């Protein structure tokens, strides 16, 4: 019971920090505007004449939703764990709180923050003519929540293998960009050469993106064009990856804690 209180408090603190930080709020809206607005609209204008069979804005929007929550909770959790050498995070690690509660609180907090960002993306999407109805968008929210959790779990795993924050600065671009490009969030990832295909298939975001498109495009003629797997398959792989990342990551992290 106590530990639950602590988990909730850590999550609440993350949420409050976000709500009080105007710069961060603005920044979270600019990124989707660039991607959906600039990327989606320009590509739609350029590719529209080839008759893709689906709206490219819808396509990017769906990918963007999942991509955003995944990256945001991934970044949140890695910064917490990698900054534990800094005094601010240390003050949490010297408190009588289970390490699991700290990690869980952070996952919850980052998920809440990502969720708020979702509303910004949805609002902006509707403004520029995304065709999904609110009923479908509501159904997509649980998928986004799963995306937050898997993103955070992946963050724990990555952080457990990196010893210092400055190493992370060097490693992250090599990790994050291929993951985004191979996720199918912005461009289709069918018919890839075999070596890229392997990378795609071990990329957790790929399953999340495919899953959310399965929800958002359900019942439309475009569904087979924008998805590669069934919803159930995506759900299974995405969840299993999340659980594995969480268990292995937290285990490795707590193992290393104190023995650095």
């Amino acid at each position, binding site marked *: 019971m106590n530990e639950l*209180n602590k988990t909730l408090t850590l999550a609440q603190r993350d949420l409050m*920090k976000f709500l009080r930080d105007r710069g961060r709020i603005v920044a979270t809206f600019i990124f989707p505007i660039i991607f959906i607005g600039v990327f989606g609209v320009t590509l739609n204008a350029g590719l529209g004449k080839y008759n893709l069979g689906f709206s490219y804005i819808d396509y990017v929007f769906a990918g963007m939703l999942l991509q955003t929550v995944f990256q945001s909770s991934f970044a949140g959790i890695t910064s917490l764990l990698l900054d534990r050498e800094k005094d601010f995070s240390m003050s949490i690690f010297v408190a009588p*709180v289970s390490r699991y509660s700290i990690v869980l609180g952070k996952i919850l907090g980052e998920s809440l923050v990502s969720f708020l960002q979702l509303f910004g993306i949805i609002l902006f999407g509707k403004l520029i003519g995304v065709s999904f109805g609110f009923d479908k968008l509501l159904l997509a929210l649980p998928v986004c929540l799963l995306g937050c959790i898997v993103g955070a779990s992946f963050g724990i795993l990555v952080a457990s293998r990196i010893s210092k924050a400055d190493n992370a600065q060097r490693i992250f671009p090599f990790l994050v960009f291929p993951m985004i490009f191979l996720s199918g969030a912005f461009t289709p990832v069918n018919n890839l050469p075999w070596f890229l295909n392997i990378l795609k298939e071990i990329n957790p975001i790929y399953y999340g993106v495919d899953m959310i498109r399965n929800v958002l495009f359900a019942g439309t003629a475009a569904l087979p064009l924008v998805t590669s797997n069934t919803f159930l398959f995506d759900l299974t792989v995405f969840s299993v990856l999340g659980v594995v990342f969480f268990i292995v990551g937290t285990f490795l992290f707590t193992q290393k804690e104190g023995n650095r």
Partner: protein
Amino acid sequence: MDFSLVAKDVVKHYPKASVNAVDGINLEVKTGEIYGFLGPNGAGKSTAIKMFVTTLFPTSGQILVDGLDPKKDSNKVRQQIGVVYQSVSLDENLTAEENLRSHAVLYNITGFALTYKATSPKYKKRLDEVLTLVDLADKKFDIVKTFSGGMKRRLDIAKALLHFPKVLFLDEPTTGLDPQSRKAVWEYLTTLQKQHSFTVFLTTQYLEEAEICNRISIIDHGKILVTDTPANLKKSVGEELLYLKPAKKEALEAELNKHDIAFSVDSFGDYIIDLKHKKAQDILRLIKCDLEEINIKKPSLDDVFIKYTGRKIE
């Protein structure tokens, strides 16, 4: 004798490092004592404090904080200690109360509460107590970002004291503060410590800060070179000297000779008396003639540090 902190042959070897960061330290900090580690950057002070506060495990040796092993009984030890770090560990965008509230939940003082109103009476009472202690009672609902450096530091200390810790650890707590705020922080701390008699363990590289300790260990290259009271350490380097500048030389000389007090005269015309066996006050009581200036020169901790490490502290 009760000890709040005991270290026996504690060694910390970081993977891939060529030397031990902490190289076999032994210490016993008495309950209610203010104990300090004085040493330059990289001496092993922070590594030692990390091991005491459960965030780093020693390679070998034994540590007991309030009788408990920080590695085996981490959470029990954590509940008994307060930690103040070099840089302020507060959320700048939250209010003073919100910062302390989340701390209170982590330390089992109150349950999860979305608003101040929903918190327990026990927490509200303690919150007012600690904020009053550090003179921030009227800033309860102010955003921390608006505070000065000294105020933030005081709030940080209030936070560390919120859960009635038995031992307060301070890792170079006045780094980055101007001399005035630094002095104020130490005044608060020593007053608080006297009122509530918790044990204080601090690290510093400022000699004047080490003066507030009951005992100091001088640490360099991961080893404790010497441990004693600041006064004894200074005595170990040399004696105190009394400098007297008389209005009339002859009058003072006559009086000193009459009372059989040995003296020497320096090039400035000062009469210098060694205070090894006499108290300055006793000597001054005997002297009736007019004096223009009276000085007592003490060896500083600077001199102590040079004696034990062979160099000046940076």
